[in-house]
């Protein structure tokens, strides 16, 4: 599983890095960023899916 944030759509709500701190982090302005290349460790997959489904802007995709 790999996740990606569309920076054009992200508005910095901060749900992703609150819900899946092993997968996402934030920049100095509070916008979400994927950690590394966005590859999700097996133990983080549920949290990553929760983050994808909680983004108010639909800014995150998983594949």
């Amino acid at each position, binding site marked *: 599983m790999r996740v990606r944030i569309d920076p054009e759509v992200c508005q910095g709500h*901060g749900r992703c890095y609150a819900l899946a701190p092993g997968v996402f982090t934030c920049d100095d302005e509070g916008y979400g960023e994927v950690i590394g290349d966005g590859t999700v460790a097996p133990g983080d997959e549920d949290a990553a899916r929760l983050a994808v489904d909680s983004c108010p802007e639909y800014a995150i995709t998983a594949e």
Partner: protein
Amino acid sequence: MPAAPEPPPTPATTGAPAAGRPVDDSDLVPTRERLAAAVAEAPPEEEYGPVHDFATDFDHTDEAWVADPYPIWDELRETCPIAHTERYGGAWLPTRHADVSAIANDTENFTSRSVVVSRGRPPIELAPAGIAPPITSDPPFHAAARRLLLSVMSPKAVADLEPSTRAYCRELIAAMEGRDVVDAAVEYAQHIPVRVIANMLGLPESDGDRFRGFVHGILEGVSKPLEERVEVFLELFEYLTPQVEARQAEPRDDLISMLIASEIDGEPITPFHVTRTVALLLIAGIDTTWSAIGASIWHLADHPDDRERIVRDPALLPTAIEEFLRAYAPVTMARLVRDDFEYEGCPMKAEEWVLLSFPAANRDPEAFDRPDEVLIERAPNRHAAFGLGAHRCAGSHLARMEIRVALEEWLAAFPSFRLADPDAVRWSAGQVRGPRALAVEVS
């Protein structure tokens, strides 16, 4: 019926600086004369009675709406779903999540020049910044004005404020020692955001009553005569202008001084821009956070099962808070229609309002299962309590911290509490909804 006001003849819609370049705005600082002129241009005051048909004549300050807006929105969503009113010089009310989201993201057709519905419209000459940048700014100026605030409102910056916020919550609770009944809205929730924002801005905490007066006048006094509303704005700017001037002369270690030193496109921002952004921070963070904390306590006072679950397992609290934010979202924003525009069959006229009801969007069954049930374990929860699009609440990380700390401390002190008199709970009117009288038995 008031005529929709003519769009003022103006350079602002066409002559706004192309980039985020500051303009000389010193001739726009509010004075009694300038505001009197704006009042004279507003559509005439009309007497409207109680609302009989929310689809064609809604009023968000109507008694029935203030008491319980949810059935009103549900019915409109099923039958309308975009309501209209002639009040306030014309306003629209989308109730579906999809429409609220589409309009929030359409900064071309909908301007943020004012975000609080009232009879008057702020002078168009204030564009592109607006009366309270960045919330009243449109692109492209908006992004630059907003960037000034994001780093001081980031999760990392907010974490530094948590210990002082917690200490203050404990102080408020300690002052209730020995009481059987306390007002959780008046004696607890309202003080927390006032203290936090006063400390950030470097304003005296002892001015808290004045801040609440400004907030009340601006956000809850929308049906008052314009002359009275204008007085509140004058008082607010008369209070803030010397605060900004004092820090221009001698910078301090506070957010006002940081704003004075900040730049847009390599140019310092104007003192009037600083004053207006400080006005925004003061007004936007108080009523809203107070409402979110109060509504959460109200729910827990009235739902012992939820309260007991959270007390037994505090790890549930963050998820529960998101659900309280969804179900009792305090904030409705507004836009002005820029030019005549048809949206989903609605003939929207220039200078009409659109109420962006994030609370109604959060109750849309197309977006949420069982939307009218409060499920404290709801996850995922894609709610829109902090808005959608480029104007997402810049203080959302700060607000979430304040709400969490306030509830953690409240529940630690009062693991068991109930409404002293459910009928005596009173909710605010206007675009910020929360309990303003909330007596609870804590013994």
